C-alpha cells in the first residue's frame, strides 16, 4: 500500500488538487465561504495596494480635469445659482412637511425608528470576475462593517456587504444577477422585487398585474427583506409591460446609482448576526 502511494503520489496529489475544490463548490459553493486567516492575510496585503493605486490614478485624473473644468466654470456657476434657488424653495417646503409629519406622529404616538450608524467608505477596487458584480470598499470590521449590512449613496441603493475583514469589505452590487431587493412604488405603495440582471437595468418582479404602476414611477426599498432600510431610492420604472393574462406585470428599473462609477459610499443597517435573536455584530465576522 505504502509503495503504491509512493509510486503514484504525484497523480494522486494532482487529482486531489482538482477534485477537492470541485467537491467544495458542488457541496456549498453557491453560498460562498467566510474568510479564513489566509484570505485575511491576502486581503490585508492587496487592499492597501488597491487603495494606493486608486488614489494615485484619481489624483492624476483630477489634476488634469481641474484645469479643463475652470473653462466652463462661469456658465456652470450661473446654472448652479438658479438650481440653488429652486432647491432652497424645495427644502423650505419639505421643512413644513417634516414639521407637520412630526406633529402627526406625536398625535398618533408613533414609535420613531432609531437611525443606525452610517459608515463612510471609499471604493478601492472592482472584483476581476465578471460573473459576480462586487466592489471592495475601504471600511471593514474595524470600522463596524459586517456581512449583511447594506450599502447606499445619497442617490440610492448600491448593494450589500458579503464579506468583511479587518479594514476592508466586499459589496455585492444590486445589479448582480443573484441580487434581490424588496421594493415598493413610492406613489402607489405597490410592492414587488427588484432583481439584478448583471449590468444595466434591474427587473421588476412579483408585481401583481392589478397594482398601480406607471412608466417613470420612483421605486424605493420596502424594508421587508430585513437587509435594506425602507425608503432608499432604487430607480425609476421603464419599459412597463402590462400583460393581458397572468398574475404579474413586468418592467425594467433604471438604477438611481451608476454602479460602474462608484467612488464614495455609506454602509448602513444591521449585520446578519444582529437579525438573529441574541446575535452580536462581532458574530458576523465569524
Amino acid at each position, binding site marked *: 500500500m505504502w509503495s503504491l502511494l509512493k509510486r503514484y503520489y504525484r497523480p494522486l496529489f494532482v487529482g486531489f*488538487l482538482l477534485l477537492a475544490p470541485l467537491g467544495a463548490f458542488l457541496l456549498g459553493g453557491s453560498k460562498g465561504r467566510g474568510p479564513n486567516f489566509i484570505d485575511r492575510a491576502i486581503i490585508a496585503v492587496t487592499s492597501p495596494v488597491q487603495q494606493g493605486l486608486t488614489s494615485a490614478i484619481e489624483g492624476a485624473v483630477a489634476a488634469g480635469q481641474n484645469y479643463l473644468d475652470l473653462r466652463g466654470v462661469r456658465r456652470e456657476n450661473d446654472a448652479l445659482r438658479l438650481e440653488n434657488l429652486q432647491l432652497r424653495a424645495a427644502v423650505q417646503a419639505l421643512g413644513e412637511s417634516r414639521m407637520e409629519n412630526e406633529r402627526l406622529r406625536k398625535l398618533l404616538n408613533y414609535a420613531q425608528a432609531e437611525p443606525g450608524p452610517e459608515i463612510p467608505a471609499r471604493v478601492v477596487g472592482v472584483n476581476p470576475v465578471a460573473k*459576480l458584480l462586487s466592489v471592495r470598499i475601504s471600511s471593514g470590521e474595524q470600522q463596524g462593517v459586517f456581512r449583511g449590512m447594506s450599502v447606499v449613496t445619497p442617490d440610492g441603493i448600491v448593494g450589500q456587504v458579503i464579506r468583511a475583514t479587518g479594514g476592508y469589505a*466586499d459589496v455585492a452590487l444590486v445589479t448582480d444577477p443573484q441580487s434581490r431587493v424588496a421594493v415598493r412604488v413610492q406613489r402607489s405603495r405597490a410592492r414587488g422585487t427588484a432583481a439584478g440582471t448583471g449590468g444595466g437595468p434591474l427587473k421588476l418582479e412579483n408585481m401583481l398585474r392589478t397594482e398601480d404602476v406607471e412608466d417613470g414611477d420612483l421605486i424605493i426599498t420596502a424594508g421587508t427583506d430585513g437587509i435594506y432600510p425602507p425608503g432608499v431610492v432604487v430607480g425609476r420604472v421603464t419599459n412597463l409591460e402590462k400583460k393581458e393574462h397572468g398574475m404579474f406585470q413586468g418592467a425594467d428599473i433604471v438604477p438611481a446609482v451608476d454602479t460602474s462609477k462608484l467612488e464614495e459610499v455609506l454602509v448602513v443597517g444591521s449585520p446578519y448576526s444582529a437579525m438573529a435573536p441574541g446575535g452580536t455584530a462581532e458574530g458576523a465576522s465569524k
Partner: protein
Amino acid sequence: MKFLVSVALALALLTLESVLVKQAGLELGRVDVTVVLVAFLALRATLMEGAISAFSVGYLLDLMSGQPTWLYTFLAVFIFLVGRLVPTFVEVRGALAFALFSMAADVGHSLLASFFTWLTVKEDGPGSQLAEMPLQVALTGLAALALFPLLRRFEASQERPAGLLR
C-alpha cells in the same frame, strides 16, 4: 520558484485589474489574466509545480471575486491539466501562438464557469451569461500578447546556465 513567481504575478495583475476596471467603468468586460498565467504554466511547468501554481492562482481569483466558491480554483487546475495535453497535438511557439492558445483556454474557462454557475444558481440559461464572452476573450488574447515577453523573461531568469559542475 515558478510557483512563487506565478502567485506574485497573479496577485499583482489581479490587484491592478481590479483598479483599472474601476477606473474604466467596465461592468462586463474583464481580462482573464489568471487564464493567461495558467496557460503559460500548462506549456512550461512540470506537472506538480504547475498544478500547485494553478491551484494557488485559481484560489486568488476566487478570493478576489468577493464571494469565493472554489469554482475558479477547480477551473484553474482543470484548464492547466487540459492545456498540458495541447502541445502533444499542436506546437505552441511564439507570442501569437501563445495568445491564440490563451484565448482558446479562456473560451473553455468561460463556458465551464457559466455552466457551473448556472448549475448552482439556475436563474437563467447558461447562454445568458455568455454575452460578454467575445470581448473578454479578445481582451485576454491582447493581455497574453503583452504578458508573453514578461513571462519568458521570468522563465529565462530561472534557467541556470549549464556548467561543468552540473
